């Protein structure tokens, strides 16, 4: 038999308010110092959670492999096969987009798993007992996930961008704005896409369902638009093309599939708006629903 600890004298923790003499609730007094918890505690807890499961390593590992692998392979292929002057005026950073498009699936999966897997395993009940403020839990998850997703994406994208510029001599020299959008901007966008997935995971509470919804969101508009042959649907088709996520990715290199649609930093504002609305909805649902 073992007891958790030897009985402690009542004077060990004078900071218990309720245990003060005359309190209506006389009870055990713990020797452990009492801390008023805040968002920082929730963040460090979420950081431990995200780094201590293997799915994080897998999704991010595959992400880096896809982005860097495909990015470097594309650059090498273009460098080897380019005709004289064929790259003139082209933004060399734009060749990183293929890897990112595939890699975004990994970020989406990780985002969904950060929230939805807790519902699948039952961990959410433990989490919400440890931190009864549900909005704080979701905020901490969002901050930790966004920081991880952005850091990993930015490092991978930067590596590919440097390789592109070094290998593709015929292309134009990217301006400061091109660099900012093609590395920081697109990484921010991908991390926001992951954050939206995290929020959708919290709303749907089911990993497979949430991943399906997010992949549908990325691919469906483009695929649907491809099959809209009727001229009556021309405007819908154009809008679907313009605002499809692959096309928005292209906007960061100023080479979209179409001439209309979002340009410059528009995709970031769109993603920020959508994610903010979804986040507010998720918080409202968390408050309303039973865990």
């Amino acid at each position: 038999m073992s007891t958790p600890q030897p009985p402690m004298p009542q004077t060990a923790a004078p900071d218990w308010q309720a245990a003060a003499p005359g309190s209506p609730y006389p009870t055990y007094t713990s020797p452990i110092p009492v801390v008023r918890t805040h968002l920082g505690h929730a963040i460090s807890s979420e950081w431990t959670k995200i780094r201590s499961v293997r799915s994080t390593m897998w999704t991010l590992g595959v992400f880096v492999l896809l982005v860097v692998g495909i990015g470097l392979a594309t650059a090498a292929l273009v460098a080897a096969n380019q005709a004289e002057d064929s790259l003139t005026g082209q933004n060399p950073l734009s060749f990183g987009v293929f890897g990112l498009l595939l890699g975004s699936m990994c970020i989406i999966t990780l985002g969904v798993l950060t929230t939805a897997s807790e519902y699948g395993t039952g961990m959410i009940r433990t989490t919400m007992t440890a931190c009864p403020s549900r909005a704080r839990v979701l905020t901490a998850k969002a901050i930790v996930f966004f920081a991880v997703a952005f850091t990993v994406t930015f490092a991978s994208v930067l590596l590919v961008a440097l390789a592109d510029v070094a290998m593709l001599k015929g292309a134009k020299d990217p301006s400061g704005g091109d660099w900012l959008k093609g590395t920081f901007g697109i990484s921010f966008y991908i991390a926001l896409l992951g954050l939206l997935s995290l929020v959708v995971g919290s709303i749907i509470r089911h990993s497979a369902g949430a991943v399906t919804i997010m992949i549908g969101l990325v691919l469906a508009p483009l695929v649907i638009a491809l099959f809209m042959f009727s001229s009556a649907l021309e405007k819908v088709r154009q809008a679907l093309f313009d605002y499809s996520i692959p096309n928005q990715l292209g906007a960061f290199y100023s080479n979209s599939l179409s001439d209309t649609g979002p340009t410059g930093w528009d995709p970031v504002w769109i993603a920020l708006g959508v994610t903010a609305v979804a986040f507010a909805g998720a918080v409202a649902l968390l408050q309303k629903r039973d865990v």
Partner: protein
Amino acid sequence: MIELEGLTKRYGEKLAVNNLTCTVRPGMVTGFLGPNGAGKSTTMRMMLGLDRPTAGDVRIDGKHYDHLKDPLTYIGALLDAKAMHGGRSAFNHLLCLAQSNGIPKRRVAEVLDTVGLTAVAKKKAKGFSLGMGQRLGIAGALLGDPRILMFDEPVNGLDPEGIHWIRNLMKSLAAQGRTVFVSSHLMSEMALTADHLVVIGQGRLLADTSMSDFIERNSRSYIRIRSPQRERLLDVLHEAGVTVVESGSGALEVDGGKPEQIGELAAQHQIVLHELSPQQASLEEAFMQLTAESVEYHAHADTPHEPPQEPSPARQHWGDGWNRS
């Protein structure tokens, strides 16, 4: 101290918890008893702020759970053994809990040692047996060294040594002045650990009594007698002033008598006895009697068309009167 006041939870048409009012006091183990589906887990989830009550209120030392600034150092709870991510190691599972409440990291090693999981601290929780998962859950409950502890079916999956350990653990926690609230559907288990009993059935409060009261009222000892000369025996016993009740199966039961006395009486009148045995009604029986009306999921015998068996009239008088308080 946990105070429940008119606590009610409705899921659609079904009332899971119905106007439950009771108080769980510090310094003792309070057993929370009820058959499967009685609303025990729902009640515990509402205590922890996981489910919102439809009506009524739960207060922890006067506060709502979600107003506690340091919940884990206030209440430790074991809800179900598998409320954890299987891919995370035992150590990391406890570490993320500790961090969320600013509990020092050294406590993780301490509670792992307390529950006897130090050797598997770095192993993933999904490889754990039910009993090990239960121990990890208990470690999580003890992490903040809280003044209130809640255990939902803690003996599930534990081996005999583990059951013995958790019994002593709960008693020693209560002896330190903590509030210990433990749910179970096993009366026999509660009889060994709990000082106070709260019994619910179909979400309603059936009993709120001290364990010793419950035992006193329900541990009935009687003598069972079988005889082929039943009528004569009844007359003889009646003349001798012994109160006899007839049990359903043709046997006679005498409350509180001595077998010697009845045996001698029968011998004097040359009555043949086939059985003369002292009996002790178990607390388990008393509990089943109490909750018989409210058991939600009955197992059915092979003959489904037979009407449900009524409790025998002889048994009814001792099981139904004690919860009037």
